[in-house]
């Protein structure tokens, strides 16, 4: 695909798939009442600039896409991506303030999916998604680096606490512990501290070298495939190890 092209056929199909009962009802009944405005911190933090009120953001993104039935130019789609990624973080507060309970963030996520398909996701997010697919974590940490880091922490913290272990792929464990890739890369002591807690609590736990990153930046990018992959590898690992539950950090 050329740099400046937009695959409007793909967008059209995507728009048709998206138009289920929810989207249809939401887009149809929004009364433009503006109850949503004051729920949005983007709106409040920008001196109540009406451009940041949630219903307007939908009109300018998903509304525009439906109105033009996917026939948008690259420039228009770039503008849409700016709003979908830059003016909304998908916190869903507006859906609590809407009299009809319209889930605006879900629609923004759908718009992100379309923008992502045309290569318009912010670089940080799309790189993270690519890493997740290749390495099973968003920071491109190899299996060797992960195992070394965990072993190093086990050694260090076993000196402080007798009997401390950081088990990897231990069959028969009750809990699979997953964490943020940042902890492995920048704050390994977090793993040691979690291990101290589990040791004191007498937990029968383990980590998996196949799936340990519980972050899902692909979700924020709007990449549904990688988003599902990130979740699936954790569940697969949990099933393989036969644990009863999955524990997450943060």
């Amino acid at each position, binding site marked *: 695909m050329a740099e400046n092209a937009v695959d409007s056929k793909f967008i059209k199909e995507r728009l048709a*798939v998206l*138009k*289920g*009962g*929810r989207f*249809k*009802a*939401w887009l*149809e*009944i*929004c*009364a*433009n*009442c*503006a*109850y949503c*405005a*004051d*729920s949005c911190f983007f*709106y409040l933090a920008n001196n*109540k600039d*009406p*451009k940041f*009120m949630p*219903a*307007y953001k939908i*009109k300018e993104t998903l509304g525009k896409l439906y109105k033009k039935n996917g026939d948008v130019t690259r420039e228009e789609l770039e503008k849409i991506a700016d709003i979908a990624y830059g003016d909304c973080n998908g916190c869903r507060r507006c*859906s*609590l*303030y*809407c*009299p*009809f*309970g*319209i*889930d605006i963030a879900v629609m923004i996520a759908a718009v992100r999916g379309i923008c992502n398909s045309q290569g318009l996701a912010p670089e940080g997010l799309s790189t993270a998604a690519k890493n997740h697919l290749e390495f099973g974590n968003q920071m491109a940490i190899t299996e060797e680096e992960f195992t070394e880091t965990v072993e190093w922490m086990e050694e260090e913290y076993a000196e402080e606490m007798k009997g401390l272990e950081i088990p990897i792929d231990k069959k028969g464990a009750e809990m699979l512990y997953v964490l943020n890739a940042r902890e492995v890369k920048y704050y390994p002591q977090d793993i040691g501290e979690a291990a101290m807690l589990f040791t004191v609590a007498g937990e029968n736990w383990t980590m998996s070298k196949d799936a340990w990153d519980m972050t899902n930046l692909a979700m924020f990018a709007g990449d549904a495939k990688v988003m599902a992959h990130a979740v699936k590898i954790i569940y697969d690992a949990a099933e393989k190890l036969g644990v009863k539950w999955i524990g997450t950090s943060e």
Partner: protein
Amino acid sequence: MYEFVTGPLVWISFIIFFVGMTVKIVSLIRLAKEKDKVVFNHLDAGWSIRSIVFWLIPFGSRSMREKPVFTVISYTFHVCLLATPIFLLSHNILWDERWGISWWTLSESVTDYMTLIFLVAVVGLMGRRIILPEVRIVTRAYDYLLLLIAAAPFITGFLAYHQWGPYKAMLIIHVLCGEIMLIAIPFTKLSHMLLFFLTRAHIGSEMGRRREAKTW
């Protein structure tokens, strides 16, 4: 002409309203069952009912409490819009004569005041669309048209009742305006009259049963 607009045309508009809304709701639920499975796997009666009821009670939701003036205007608008035609004395006399059914009525002076209060609320809603930047930016001509469709039966009914202007013509226009509103409901944003219950049930369950958060 009078016989026609108060006879067959009434039936036609009521049929369009009821059939239109039924088709709309059934097809939306069907479409949701096919495409929005997430709606049904967490649907919960308790959370749905609370989500609906708290949004029907005046100031029942945080959103309404944070915008008291708009809430009062919007509430008055909706109560008068529904209650005035249903409990109006002359409407009840009319359908008692035609179909032999009638129920409680409000005195004519009460409904007269309700009509005026309703029209003030309409002006309030329009003014809000013009004055407040966050409402103005999402307002289209269509929004004013909908307000006009809702207000027209009240304006013409008020004029007919007080016999200002040509009575007979005004009466026919009044009935026509009412019929236009009924017919418009299934095809416009006015369908929120019933779809409100569906979307609120969904978000109530979505936020409530999934994450124990209340939506009011």
